[in-house]
């Protein structure tokens, strides 16, 4: 090694060290089990959605709306009531369930959350669009069912063990008859143990 290569090696080494000092970012598997802590997490969300969708689709309780024949029944989703002691984005749960159910082709959903945007469209189209194609208010399809529920939790802690139990209940109600056509719950139990040694 000649003497001129030494400074270059030094610079390269410093560069390497600096390069190593930044945060390391990698892609993970979104479906992989997440066990960072006992709080509600992505695995719980996926587990709930998968079990609820499988239960609802296999229940054979979904009937077409006689007023809207030949099409899968229309469902309105309400937000899951959060009865836990964590701030859980319950909309993510219902969104995930809704998406999976739509993919199953067995049901359709009413865009309840977009009513504000739809109202704007009716207004804009009422003044700006060709009357032949302008969409107007008052022609939305009425939902046959409403899907709602709640999520609750119980937390226990003894010494270094923390036990969290979640229960998620969903129910599908026929809007006209107020009959609960389907209901199911998913229970999740998570334990976290404080390590004995660590940093």
């Amino acid at each position: 090694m000649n003497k001129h290569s030494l400074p270059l090696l030094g610079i390269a080494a410093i560069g390497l060290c600096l390069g190593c000092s930044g945060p390391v970012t990698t892609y993970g598997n979104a479906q992989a089990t997440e066990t960072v802590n006992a709080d509600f997490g992505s695995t719980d969300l996926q587990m709930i959605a998968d079990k609820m969708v499988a239960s609802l689709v296999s229940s054979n309780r979904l009937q077409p709306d006689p007023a809207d024949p030949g099409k899968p029944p229309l469902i309105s989703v309400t937000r899951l009531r959060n009865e836990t002691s964590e701030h859980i984005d319950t909309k993510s749960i219902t969104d995930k369930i809704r998406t999976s159910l739509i993919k199953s082709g067995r049901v359709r959903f009413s865009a309840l959350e977009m009513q504000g945007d739809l109202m704007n469209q009716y207004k804009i189209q009422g003044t700006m669009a060709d009357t032949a194609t302008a969409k107007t208010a008052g022609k939305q399809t009425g939902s046959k069912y409403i899907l709602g529920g709640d999520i609750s939790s119980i937390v226990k802690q003894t010494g270094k063990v923390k036990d969290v139990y979640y229960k998620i209940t969903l129910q599908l109600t026929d809007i006209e008859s107020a009959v609960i056509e389907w209901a199911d719950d998913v229970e999740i139990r998570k334990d976290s143990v404080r390590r004995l040694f660590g940093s």
Partner: protein
Amino acid sequence: MRKCRSSSGSFGLRAGFLIGLLALPAAADHIKDFHTALDGLRANNLSLVDKVFIKDASRDCADRLLALYEMGAFYHMGGDPKKSIEFFNTADDVAHEYEGRAIVSAGAAGRTTGAILVNDSVLKYEGSAYDKVMSRTINAINYMLQGDLEGARVEVRKAEEYQRLERERHQREVRQAPPRGTERARMDDPSVRATYGRMNDYVKNVRNSFENAFTYYLSSQIYLAQGEAGLNDAMVEIKKAYELAPHAPGVRSAYLEIAQAQSGFAYDQARALLRVADAEPAAPGAAAGSVVVLFESGLVPQMDEVKINLFAENKLYSLAFPIYNNFGTAQAPLAILAPGRTFTTTTILDTRTLAVKALQERMPGILTRGLLGAMAKGEMQQNAEKNWGPFGGLISKVATAVMTSADRRSWLSLPAEVQVARFKLDPGPSQLELRGPGLAGKVALDVTPGSLTFLVVRAFPGYQRIDVRTFPAGGGDLVAPRPEPPGIPPVVPAPILQ
């Protein structure tokens, strides 16, 4: 503003000593920063709060949790519940992280060593139990002021859960504690008893530092805002508040009202328990709207320091302990003048008692570390004299005297007291006038049948703020998309009385 003190865990005695030196002015700095932030709040300039606390709040350092609590409370007092929520939620995450760390933690062990050699300011501020309960309680008010009752219920559940777990942990500790442990015996030392006697007298009737009647009272009112669906939960919570503060008028009247709304049987039971005569209280009109006043009054006191320097065997034994000397005076009530009637707030929480009780509960550990530290520093002086002669000995004694200081860090922007009032108003427009020492304001309400209005008043010398949020009858749960609330009634600003 000060430099964020390192909280690195892997350091030895020397590093602990150096870091301890950096930690020397911690409590004084915190008190100074707090007063700067307070001036900012009085001048309606919350950027001063950011200026003094944001650095500590956003990085891993010893005072991070304390800075987050202060910022959450300042933004709450300043009328920005959204930002307050952000800081309190981050504080909650940080507190969880501290609670979940390994039982034998190298970092914590290193910091404890540093604390023994220097002072407790080296330790991470992990928050007292009442800090954690109060942060969730104030955060519940933040969510409620934003019209998010579900978020408020999550916070009160978190507060309830924390109090329950602390109670269970406390019971386990009491069961496992030796009848006369070394630390308990140390607290019985006559000199310690003499020094802390006044403080001990002040909290002799306080059960513990982690439970308070206000948090349970607020929970009950937040459940009530849900309407019929929240009645059972409201009853459970007000019963817990009653257990802690059976004589608080606010708790008693809320207990009766909730029982009355629940059933005739529950009402009869409550009347028997509270020994209420038939004539009181008057049955509320079904068409009336309820008003709940939450009055956060004054500020908790700062800790002082007791310093003891003893010369023995050519060694300086220096000890410094935190103490509350000044508890402040009782806060005056707030009068609410409604058309033809006047209501007065009554105290439901004296935060000062929780602060003093928390310090009392921490004292055995503080005393142990202080005594160990005094002995270790004595040995260091002897070594310094042996290695560097009398001059080295003198320098080490001066260093001991200067470095020994008490950890006086505590959450200072909490209210000294919380007072409450609950009353009913006939439907229609109503003008309320608020009067208290150094506080005056008017609030216009539009009362609807069965509605529940929260009036949140914060006041301390040189500052006042009133916020109002009304929830309609039958529950104010707002489902997505959340419409903007019907509007906060105008609050007539009153002159700030210095």
